[in-house]
Structure formats: structure tokens, C-alpha cells
């Protein structure tokens, strides 16, 4: 379980995140949505202490993360970066094995784990293991990114717009894979995106952020049916509006 209590981050007088409190239950996936600069990535990074909060706290399974050594904390939390961030001087297998190696796993255990993970993210281990990141497509790179985040068997995953930079078809395939993986492993996850379709599709619950604050948290159905304000309503209706635009274009009979 992840618990954010009054989490605040200020840069000088500017508040990037203001008094955010929320809870993610075990096995739940919470999506953070909102416009660029609303503080969703900052919130995510305060959970594994890539950014230190100005005030407030994050609790992970009854422990204040402020009391855990940052590197130890991060080895327990899988993190998928928007820019993927695979290490270009390491092979695919070495990239996936990074955190287990830091934890001092023995070589056989690491090799077995890498094998299993590459299969989990639907990459052929024999073919991919010894390649370098530069030899992979964008979609393959992010599959490796997900495998790397899962390598040390974390209970908790943080994902920062993981599929944002991919083409639509690749994105769809990765989203599907991810849904399957999550179900199978029962992960607790926070997922940042500004793609509303992705949010509605993946999220057990959605938290809408604006100007550093959480304006509403609820299930996708709640948010669509009972939006707290006009902004949330507009946001929740973007997928439907887009569909209508497409329909009109394709069927000239229904002219406005």
C-alpha cells in the first residue's frame, strides 16, 4: 500500500505539488492525469525519493520512505521512465539485470530471471539478450524498460508516461501486454499519463491533478458520471469528443 500524506514540493515560492494526499491499495493501479506541468511527475518522483518533498510524507507498507536509504528504497520499487533510459553501453540482458546485480543476486538466479522477464514482455531472449539498446525499435526498448523495472520482483511500480513516445499501434500492443503483466503479478502501481483513453483503459481509479493539487479521485465511471468540476468533465469527455469528430468525418450524412 502506498500512502501520500500532505505531500508538498515548492521551488522557491512556486508550488509544484501542493498538499497531495491519496492512497493506493495493494494490487490497485492508480492513474495520475492532468495537463503538462500540473505536478503529476513530481508527485511520482517523490515516492521513490528522486525528488525530496518540501513537506508531507510518503508511507510504503507502514514505513515512512524518508527513513529508508534512497538507493535501497529504489531497488524495491520498479520505475519506468518516459525516456526509457536504457544504458547504451550495456546489453539488453545487462540492462534488465541491473537492479538484481545491485542487490547481489548470484549469476544463475539473474540469468533465469532475465530469461523469464524477456519472455514476460514478449521479447525472444535468445534473439534479444546480447543486443545493445541502439539496435532495438522504440517499442522493444520500452519493453526492456518494463522488464528492467520488474527485475528485482518489486511489489510496487511507478510508471511515468511509459508509452507516451510510441506510435499508436505499438502503444496499444504495449498497453495490452502491460495489463496482462499487472494482473499476473498483482502489482500495486502509480501510472502517470496525459492520454485519457489510456487512463480510462488501465486505471482502477483515476486522480485528476491541476496546478499541483488533486481535484478529484475516483473510478473511471465516477469521474465520467459525477465530475467534480468543469475541468474534470471536459477532460473525461475528450475520448468521446474525439470519437464524435471521427464519426462525423467518416459519415457525411450526420451533418451538424
Amino acid at each position, binding site marked *: 500500500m502506498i500512502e501520500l500524506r500532505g505531500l508538498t514540493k515548492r521551488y522557491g515560492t512556486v508550488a509544484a505539488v501542493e498538499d497531495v494526499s491519496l492512497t493506493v491499495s495493494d494490487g490497485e493501479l492508480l492513474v495520475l492525469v492532468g495537463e503538462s506541468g500540473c505536478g503529476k511527475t513530481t508527485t511520482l518522483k517523490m515516492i521513490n525519493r528522486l525528488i525530496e518533498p518540501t513537506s508531507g510524507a510518503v508511507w510504503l507498507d507502514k514505513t515512512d520512505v524518508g527513513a529508508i536509504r534512497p*538507493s*535501497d528504497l*529504489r531497488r524495491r520499487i520498479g520505475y519506468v521512465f518516459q525516456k526509457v533510459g536504457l*544504458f547504451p553501453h550495456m546489453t539488453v540482458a545487462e540492462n534488465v539485470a541491473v537492479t538484481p546485480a*545491485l*542487490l547481489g543476486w548470484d549469476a544463475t538466479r539473474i540469468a533465469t530471471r532475465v530469461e523469464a522477464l524477456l519472455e514476460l514482455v514478449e521479447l525472444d531472449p535468445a534473439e534479444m539478450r546480447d543486443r545493445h539498446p541502439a539496435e532495438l525499435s522504440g517499442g522493444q526498448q520500452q519493453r526492456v524498460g518494463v522488464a528492467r523495472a520488474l527485475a528485482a520482483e518489486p511489489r510496487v511500480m511507478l510508471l511515468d508516461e511509459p508509452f507516451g513516445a510510441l506510435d499508436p499501434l505499438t502503444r496499444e500492443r504495449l498497453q495490452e501486454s502491460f495489463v496482462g503483466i499487472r494482473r499476473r503479478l498483482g502489482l500495486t502501481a502509480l501510472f502517470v499519463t496525459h492520454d485519457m483513453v489510456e487512463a480510462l483503459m488501465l486505471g482502477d481509479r483515476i486522480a485528476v491533478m491541476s496546478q499541483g493539487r488533486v481535484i478529484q479521485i475516483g473510478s473511471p465511471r465516477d469521474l465520467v458520471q459525477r465530475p467534480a468540476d468543469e475541468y474534470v468533465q471536459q477532460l473525461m469527455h475528450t475520448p468521446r469528443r474525439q470519437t464524435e469528430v471521427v464519426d462525423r468525418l467518416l459519415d457525411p450524412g450526420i451533418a451538424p
Partner: protein
Amino acid sequence: MSEQLALLPGYLTAHLQLTLLALLFSTAISLPLGVAVTRVRWLEAPALGIAGVIQTIPSLALLAVMVPLLAYFNLQSIGFLPAIVGLTLYGVLPILRNTVTGIAGVDPALKEAARGVGMTSGQQFSRVELPLAMPVIVAGLRTATVWVVGIATLSTPVGATSLGNYIFSGLQTRNYTAVLVGCVAAAGLALVLDHLVRAVEDGVRTRRRARVAVALGVLAALFTYTMATLAAPLWGDRDRPIRIGSKTFTEQYILSAMLGRWIQDETGDSSTLTQSLGSLVAFDALVAGDIDVYVDYSGTLWANEMGRDTLSVDRADLLREVEAFLCDTHGITLAAALGFENAYALAMRRTHAEALGVRRISDLTRHARTLPMGSDYEFFARPEWDALRTAYGLEFAELRSMDSALMYEAVARGNVDVISAFSTDGRIAAFDLRALDDDRNAIPPYDAVILVSRRLVAERPEVLDALARLAGTIDAETMRQMNLAVDEQGQAPSAVAAAFVETLRAKMKNGG
């Protein structure tokens, strides 16, 4: 050619010693400093600034400035140490700059990813930043390698043997084979070392163990060999050879070789030559005990070391005063005056001098304004030049400094009209020049004298006795002939010296 190649192992080894040790020190300084700079931001400006300023100092000047600097701190100021210090400083910038650039150039997203997967800042550095910066750092190391190999040839004038010995003495004695051998050897060494460093980096990056092992093995072998040869003299210091110095012109090369041969024949002691020292560097080296014996000129010591500018001094009086000064002030013994003078003399093309009606320097005064004058690197900075100018009111159209080997040709071809020739130089006759009379005695007498260090006198008095027997054995004409044999007939200084010693010994035997 073969006599040049015979020198190669010695010069190449010495060059490797300088290069590898300097590169080792440069790396040891700049790698940690570069890392520190990327961690402590305010260090960057001063560290790169200072390294950059050092780099802008001309390389020869940087090595030269080490001589007085080290002497000030009472360290060995001639020979290996000043060269090593100068070369090390020169190698710092490229490695430092590339270390900083390489580490600073690592994508911030990768640094965040490194933290995100749970690396400590040390692991982030060793597993991500350093490997990613390595190609850039190695590029810096390769730049430093090529620079240091090249600049190490300039170690010769500060008294460290290097491949520069070929170049400096070759240029001086117009032995262009020697110059060529030196250049080719230095370039070859630079290529080989560069290739080895690149092979190590390339092998590490592409993970070819065999390649890394071979390249590292060769480098390690070179290094071990170098350090072993460097350390060897430390054990046998008692029997160390006598070190004979020489300045940067033909006569000095001949005389130093002659002294070595003479000492060997008379006492059985072996000697090594430290060649191509700057005029004042040689004296400082003798005072410091870095060399044991060399030939200087009484007038030079009179003007430079004693700071006298008195004109019209009697040759014998001056010699006595110099001898007393050296003994009292520096504990140096004047073993013998060889018998000839090598004075500075203004010289012109004979035809030109006749056309202008110039015989004496005082005749030159009214023509000087229209004539360009050429000289070696030292002369215009020496007190003798001031004395000449004042005594005769000389104002030349232009003053040009050039290598002393080239100035005779320059005047013969009319590139300049007057040069500061050396009176024993065979090329005065060979190029049909006329040496002008110093009718106002502005230039002091320049007896060639053998100077011996305090230490050698104390440890091996028999050497001093042997050297004293050389008094009055070389007259000006003999010296001119020997110089001409090297400069114009292309004989090796050592061969000319050996022939002289043989003749001298035969003469002494016959004379009693």
C-alpha cells in the same frame, strides 16, 4: 645513417622514459581532478583555466622555465626532472578537459535512470557515468600522448636525452639524416603509442578480451622496460660515468666528444654526453652538479656570470679574474685554457664589405641603418651586444634571430648583410665572408676554457690532471678546421674529435 641508427636505442629509451612517465603523472593528476570538477562545480573554472593557461605557454618556454623554477626550490634543474615536470603539465589539459566534457556530457535522463534503478552515487559514477564518458576521456588521453611524444623532443635543451638530440644536433651540424631519423622515430613512436591506447579502449568497448590483453601487455612491457632502465643508474651511482656537457653548436659537440675521448684514454673513466644545453643552462648545470665538465668561454663568463661590462681588458688578466671568480664564488675549477679564442665577430660577405669599404666595425657605423643583421638566438640579449652597440653607435635596419647553423648561409645569400659570427667558425672562410676588426675592443676576449665541477675535482683528481694537460693544445686554426670538417664536409663530431685526440697523443709522445 648507420652511425645515427646506432644511437637510436639510447635515444628512444630515454624518449619513452620521458613520455610514459609524464603521461602516467598527467593521467594521475587530471583524471581525479576532472571527476572532482564535475562533482564540485566551482572548481571547474579555476582548474580548466589554469590548465588552459599552461597550454598557451609555448612548449619550449614551458620546459625552459622549469630550469630556474626547480633551481629556486633546490631541485635537480637540468636533465630528467625539468623535462618530466614540463611534459606532465602539458599533458594535463587534454585529459582534464575531456574528462570533464565526457562526464558532463552524459545524458541527464541516464543519470536519473541510474538513480531510479537503485544505484548509489558511487555506483552511478562507476557503472554509468565513467563507462559512458570513457571514449571521450580516452580521446583526451590520445591527444595528450601524441602531444607529449612530440614535445618531449624539446627536452634536449634542458638536458634530458630524447629523440630531440637527433634534431638539435643534426640541425646544428647540418646533418639532415640525423634530423630525419629523429623526426621519423618521434612520429613513429607517437603512432604506436596512440594505436595501443586506442586498441585498449576499442577492445574494452567492443569487449574483445584478447585485443585488450595484447595492447595492455605491450604497454605494460614498454612501461616496465622504461622504468627498469630508469631505475638502473640508482644502484651504480659510485661508478657513474662522468657527465660532459655541451652547448648548442658544432664546436661544442666536437669539444665535448674530444673531452670524453681524452678522459677515457688518459684515465680509463667512461663518460656520457649531455648535449645541446643553452649557454647559461650549461653553467647552471655545472654549478648544480648536474654535469661535471664542459667548455665555456672566458668572455661569456665575464659578461654573463660576473656582470662586467669593462672594455679593453687584457686577455690574460681577464682569464685570471675569471678563474678566481669561479673558484671563490662557485667552487668551480678552471682546468685549462685550450689555447684558442672563439670570439663574437661581426662578419659580412667579402665582396659586399669591399664594395662599401668596410674593414673595421667602426667603418660599419655609417652603413648600418641600411643593412639587416642576423644573429643566433642569444646574441641580441647578451651584454656583448649592448657593448658593441654603445661603443660603435650601431643601428641596423633590422635585427633577425635565427638558428646559428643557418646564419652563415643567410649572409652568404644576402638574406641579411651582417651576422654575429663566431671567430673559429670554418664557414667564415668557406662562405667567403670577412670578419670585421673590433677596433675599439668592445668585445672581451673569449678563451675556450675547460670547467670542472667541485665534486669531480674532489672525487677524481686524476681526471682534473688529465684535463689540465690539454692546456694550449688547440689553436684557432685547428679549431676552425675541425668545425669546417663537420659543418661542410659532413664528418661526425665524434670522428673529428677522435682523430684530433689520436694526433695529439702521437705529438705528445714524440715531444716527450
